């Protein structure tokens, strides 16, 4: 009976409308994925996050701090060419769009920093045609400036205590300066003085890809909504029940169809990813996505079964989907979300799917609990779907 039902739904699904929708989703997601494909770094053979950028530094200070700053910028992977030149030359270069920004270090910057315990005085001129990249570097510089202030403050605080250990106060002063500058600009080079777990750092491309793939897998579940509604409102579901079809069979048949559809949709991207991101083993990623998609589909079945007639269901389904994605860290990174949303996220298939795929892309081992959670959620939502289907009653009259 289940086979017959699956065949029936399959025949129902294979129509021009569905195919058109599928092709549209395929094209849109292809564009999205391709826009993420980064150019190959020929030396390492690994994909690069951004095109390297060029900067100009106008150094009127010519001090130890400005030299360190220039050295640190040169060592950044993201910086291709670093020009040190006059303001006029740099401005012309910025005008021609050759550089991302100009970092203007004024005369006496170092002295001012020492006396006022402040790293202010730097001016940044941005290339308006590259706002995103410029914004990232500016934020990095601001963070560095704040770090300089913090480190200097800490060191100067202990200066008095350390003075008796040195015969020559100038030697102490020199050492403090050297430590302060080194520490501060290690931060610019993203080599934090505080030891951090590298695995905890958010990597943008894996985060975006894992979120996007999860979104696509979950989005497909919306296809079930109109079908369940039609089945419910026309009396087809009741007729199926009278013919001996159980709610679990109905749910399973619908979801089998959806899984096939989702798999067909995601397969090309998994193959692209496997080449682009050295994603291995990609079938495991496919399995994660199918589990997340199926769990979401179960939720949609439950929603469509229990909701009253009207157009509000589609809106509710969209809101639910957006909430699941948000709580799952697919819209904003998990670390930016409020605590209660992080806790709620544990009930979202998106949370576990994104995390498992992210770990795969970054080569990090996933905790077995993540799999257990995803499996548990699937079972829980399946039960809700079956219960919802069993509650369908014909309209009263």
């Amino acid at each position, binding site marked *: 009976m289940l086979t017959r039902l699956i065949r*029936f739904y399959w025949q129902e699904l294979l129509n021009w409308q569905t195919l058109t929708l599928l092709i549209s989703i395929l094209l849109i997601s292809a564009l999205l994925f391709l826009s993420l494909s980064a150019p190959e770094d020929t030396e390492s053979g690994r994909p690069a996050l951004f095109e390297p950028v060029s900067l100009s530094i106008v150094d009127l200070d010519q001090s130890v701090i400005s030299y360190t700053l220039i050295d640190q910028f040169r060592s950044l992977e993201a910086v291709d060419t670093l020009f040190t030149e006059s303001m006029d030359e740099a401005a012309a270069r910025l005008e021609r769009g050759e550089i991302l920004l100009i970092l203007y270090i004024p005369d006496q910057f170092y002295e001012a920093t020492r006396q006022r315990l402040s790293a202010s005085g730097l001016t940044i001129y941005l290339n308006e045609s590259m706002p995103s990249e410029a914004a990232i570097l500016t934020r990095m510089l601001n963070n560095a400036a704040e770090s300089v202030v913090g480190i200097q403050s800490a060191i100067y605080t202990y200066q008095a205590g350390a003075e008796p250990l040195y015969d020559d106060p100038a030697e102490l002063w020199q050492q403090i300066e050297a430590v302060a500058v080194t520490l501060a600009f290690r931060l610019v080079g993203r080599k934090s003085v505080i030891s951090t777990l590298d695995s905890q750092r958010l990597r943008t491309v894996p985060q975006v890809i894992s979120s996007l793939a999860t979104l696509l897998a979950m989005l497909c579940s919306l296809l079930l909504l109109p079908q369940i509604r039609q089945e419910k409102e026309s009396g087809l579901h009741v*007729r199926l029940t*009278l013919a001996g079809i159980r709610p679990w069979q109905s749910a399973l048949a619908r979801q089998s169809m959806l899984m096939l559809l989702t798999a067909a949709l995601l397969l090309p991207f998994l193959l692209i990813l496997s080449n682009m991101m050295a994603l291995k083993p990609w079938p495991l990623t496919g399995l994660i996505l199918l589990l997340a998609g199926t769990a979401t589909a179960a939720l949609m079945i439950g929603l469509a079964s229990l909701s009253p007639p009207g157009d509000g269901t589609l809106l509710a389904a969209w809101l639910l989907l957006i909430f699941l994605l948000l709580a799952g860290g697919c819209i904003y990174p998990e670390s930016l979300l409020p605590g209660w949303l992080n806790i709620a996220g544990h009930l979202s298939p998106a949370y576990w799917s994104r995390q498992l795929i992210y770990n795969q892309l970054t080569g990090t081992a996933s905790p077995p609990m993540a799999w257990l959670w995803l499996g548990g959620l699937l079972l829980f939502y399946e039960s809700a779907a079956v219960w919802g289907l069993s509650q369908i009653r014909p309209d009263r009259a």
Partner: protein
Amino acid sequence: MNKRVTAQADDRLVVRDVWKAYRREQVLRGVSLQLRPGEILGLCGANGVGKTTLLNLIASIMPADRGEISLFGVPVSQHRPYRSVIGYVPQNIALSPRLSVRRNLLFWAALAGNRTRVQRRQAVQRVVELARIHDVLDKPVSRCSGGMARRANLAAGLVGQPRLILLDEPTAGIDSESRDAILDSLARLREQGCMILMINHYEHELERICDRIVTLSDGRILEADLDAD
């Protein structure tokens, strides 16, 4: 094929003192009626008096709060044998709109227990002739006219060769040709010994085909169905 009812000491549909409420609203208040093979019973009444609720209770779609319903002596609570002899034709077109009429009917024939392809084709052929829908067999249901879609809907309810046929306004909003075709089909089914319970707003239609007509009002049958025990 599903296990059919075999013990037929009682060959009737019996509804006795059935009550049903939706939350605080009492919809049916002690309804009793019965139906014999080869008989068509018409059920009429204003909107919201509980006609469809009564039909759904008889179809075993929902349980009654109180009272008894049995078919051929089998109580409604025994879903499998009870449902195996029921043909349910809801008010809306309960077919897949994207599939052709033929594919829909073949599916329902398969669910009715016709295991081989030949059996399924024969079952479909029989109801196609009964409902006179040859012309639209290969059309998607969504492209059929309202009348043809209703006839296909009826055919789907008949494909399992039911002994009791429950129809909820089968002729609502269709042209006279389709209405005649549907009523003719029902008359032929009566001749074959089927029991038919039909809800309809049009009393003249009921008078034309029904052996008995009962009117529901305020959850009660206005004129007592004298045959009921």
